[in-house]
């Protein structure tokens, strides 16, 4: 339903690109998360799709219709895309009900529709209040109701939870996506938090420096990341460089880049069983107790430093560590 083809946008006439040759598509009913650090181009991508920026090259198709290209530009008000802004952007001088009514003023039974939306987000009684009288979470839900009221075919959520603390965040994320699931709208969900993405999205698109690094189902991204960057987004990862290779006596193909997730490195593997192909000794430099687990800062014989986690409270000054060869991640970088 959404088809994006080699989309580029530069804010300094081509000296650098906020977005470069981005290509991907979404199917009807998909929930896709766009993950990237700040400055990776997430917001630019969203604003291009919504029509709030104009692309420098490439095209965007929505439901088979070109909405932006080199010689065509459909105004945002004609695109029928729902957008929930990071800061909610509720109209401060309008009541909650009027905010929701705003986008559906041409509808016949607009009053019913608006009330229906407020019921959906669980704010049936709040219609007469003003945005500043609501909590952050409630404002968020009003923004969602307002965006969903015109029945958009695509709903975009731009970092909707980044203003909230982590406790509230999880709760609100679940609430919001429970509401969204009831409407079977296609969703594009922008976040810098991989936990957010993993918990709600069918598919995740990773942006780095304005480019798509990987787009895949959530589970695949953990098992088969395309790059070291993607791998490290889903947990601490160590590159297996020359020094580590020599410490573990594991010669690897030099043309590829190899890495291992820290959590896959085992501390004192039991009786040198088959679980670990590569083993080495390490000196414990520092122990940091983090609740029920302990973080160890290790120094290998080759001089390399490494952190690992363990549940074992009985740690000597020198320990054995090892990992399984099937846990090695390999990239063509």
């Amino acid at each position, binding site marked *: 339903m959404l088809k994006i083809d080699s989309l580029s946008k530069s804010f300094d006439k*081509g000296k650098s690109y906020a977005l470069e040759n981005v290509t991907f598509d979404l199917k009807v009913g998909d929930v896709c998360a766009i993950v990237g650090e700040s400055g990776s181009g997430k917001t630019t991508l969203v604003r291009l799709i919504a029509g709030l920026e104009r692309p420098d090259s490439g095209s965007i198709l929505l439901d088979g219709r070109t909405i932006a290209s080199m010689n065509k530009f459909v105004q945002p008000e004609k695109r029928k895309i729902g*957008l929930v802004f990071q800061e909610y952007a509720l109209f401060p001088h309008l009541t909650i009900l009027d905010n929701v009514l705003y986008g559906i003023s041409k509808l016949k039974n607009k009053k019913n529709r608006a009330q229906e939306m407020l019921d959906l987000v669980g704010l049936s009684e709040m219609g007469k209040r003003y945005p500043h009288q609501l909590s952050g979470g409630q404002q968020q839900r009003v923004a969602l109701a307002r*965006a969903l009221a015109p029945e958009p075919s695509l709903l975009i959520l731009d970092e909707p939870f980044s203003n909230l603390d982590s406790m509230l965040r999880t709760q609100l994320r679940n609430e919001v996506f429970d509401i969204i699931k009831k409407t079977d709208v296609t969703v594009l969900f922008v976040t810098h938090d991989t936990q957010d993405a993993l918990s709600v999205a069918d598919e995740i698109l990773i942006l780095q420096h304005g480019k798509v690094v990987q787009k895949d189902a959530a589970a695949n991204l953990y098992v088969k990341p395309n790059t070291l960057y993607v791998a490290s987004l889903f947990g601490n990862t160590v590159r297996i460089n020359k020094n580590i290779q020599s410490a573990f006596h594991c010669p690897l193909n030099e043309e590829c880049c190899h890495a291992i997730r820290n959590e896959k490195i085992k501390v004192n593997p039991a009786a040198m069983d088959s679980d670990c192909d590569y083993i080495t000794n390490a000196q414990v430099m520092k122990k940091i107790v983090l609740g029920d687990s302990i973080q160890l800062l290790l120094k290998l014989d080759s001089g390399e430093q490494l952190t690992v986690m363990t549940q074992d409270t009985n740690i000597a000054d020198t320990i054995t560590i090892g990992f399984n060869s099937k846990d090695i991640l390999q990239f063509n970088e």
Partner: protein
Amino acid sequence: MKQAGSNSETFSLKSRIKRFLRDNNRWSVFTLAIVLFLALPIIFIGVELFAGPGETWSHIVKYLLPEYILNSLFLVFFCSVLVLVFGVSSAWFVSRFEFPMRRQLEWLLILPLAIPSYIVGYAYAGIFDYGGTLDLLFRQWNIEFIRVDIMNRAGLAFVLSISLFPYVYVSARAFFLNQANNLLEASKMLGVSERKTFFKLMLPLARPAIVAGLVLVLMEVLNDYGAAKYYGVNTFTTGIFRSWFSLEEPETAVYLSALLIIIIFALILFEKWQVRKIKFSSSKSNSTQIQRKESSGVQKGLIFIMVFIPVFLGFVLPVAQLLYWAFLTATTVFDLQFLFVSLQSFGIAIISAFITVFFALLLIYFSKWSALRFIKNVARVGVLGYAIPGAVIAIGIMIPTIALDKWIIDVLGQFGVDSGLIINGTLIALFYAYAVRFLAVAYNPIESTSLKVSSSIPDSSKVLGVGNLKTFFKIEFPLIKTGVFSAVILVFIDVMKELPLTLILKPYDIDTLAVKAYEYASDEMVMEASIPSLFIIFTAMVPVIFLNKLLIKK
């Protein structure tokens, strides 16, 4: 490293043209049209230069121009010094120290702006004149009066400075209050003395803000006609008037205007250069308010006196003199005709305030809706009228409108209709001139309030299917109302005070209070000028106090 421009085609000329064709919309065209309309008077001055100078030009260059230039430089230099002393010191004391009546003095320091400089000039002339107020007082006390002659360029520099220093005070105070606190605390923690902190840290940091205020002052200095004329100092502005009215040589007026414009642009470039050299002033405003220092009793007294002096000289003394005159002349000046002039003055000011604000809104929002990025810079060109002296704008409007009217009379004459002058010498030309001159006065407050509205608010309106115009009326206008309201008031005050432009362009049967005051003063009836002057001051004072309250609240 990121490879920039890996698709080199994107910024090829062909692609740029394609995008330009995609992105140019009617809003871009409208913005350009409005800017062009507002720039027309200046463009006409440029065009008229090609018609060559008038007969007296060589005479003026030889005998008068050196004097104009010398006097203007003299005024620019001494006004700068005085204005910096009054403005920066009072701003620093008020924002850094606690002393008796600090709160009251903080806004009293703005009030000199309510008095047009030519009126301050009349008042001081009356105080120091032979047989003037001081003379009378001294005689009463039997002290020999040492007469100080102030009817010269030194006196003029003093009068202009004391009435214009609040521009520097306001911008320096804003800097000291909002931006300086954490730096000040850092300096204190490092054990640096108060004096050294001010001279080594605060003054250099505040320089861009101070220079911005100073440039506004100097523009007003070069704009002044009334005071220079009354004090008999020949400046560019009086020269323009003389060649227009006495010599009846528009060509010469045009040449003098062009020279004056060059001087003004040199000033603007100077400001830009000053600000470019120091980028640090643009740091985010600090939310913590500056901590005021409690000092000893003697110090407090001294500071109070230092801060009170500019208020006394710039407001209390001239107003007292005017009130005294008003008391003497009330019976002769107050009549039905005077009431009528006041009403005319109010009416003209209100209408031009609305017209100007309307243009400012068009310019701000049309350029926002334009998808071409350079249009936003183009819009700012429309604001430059504020830098151009009123007399120059008037000349730039007078010349083309006379030509246009002649053409209209010719065309309509062929159909046997005698139309007379339609634009020249009518209120249309006057309103147009006010809009050109005071656009920035309306533009800046509206723009700054509109920047406070997060761009995601109008954006979300558009995403919800509502177009630009409807978004403006339903969402943006309600949110920027206060900015628009203060813009209307500010333009209103400026039009009430305006003299040179009004003198040249006003219809002969219409008077404003400013013109009335000027006419009394030029007819050797300066006492009678006090009542229209006081009317202007009080109408300007109320909004100045009101707006300052608004600013403090923010």
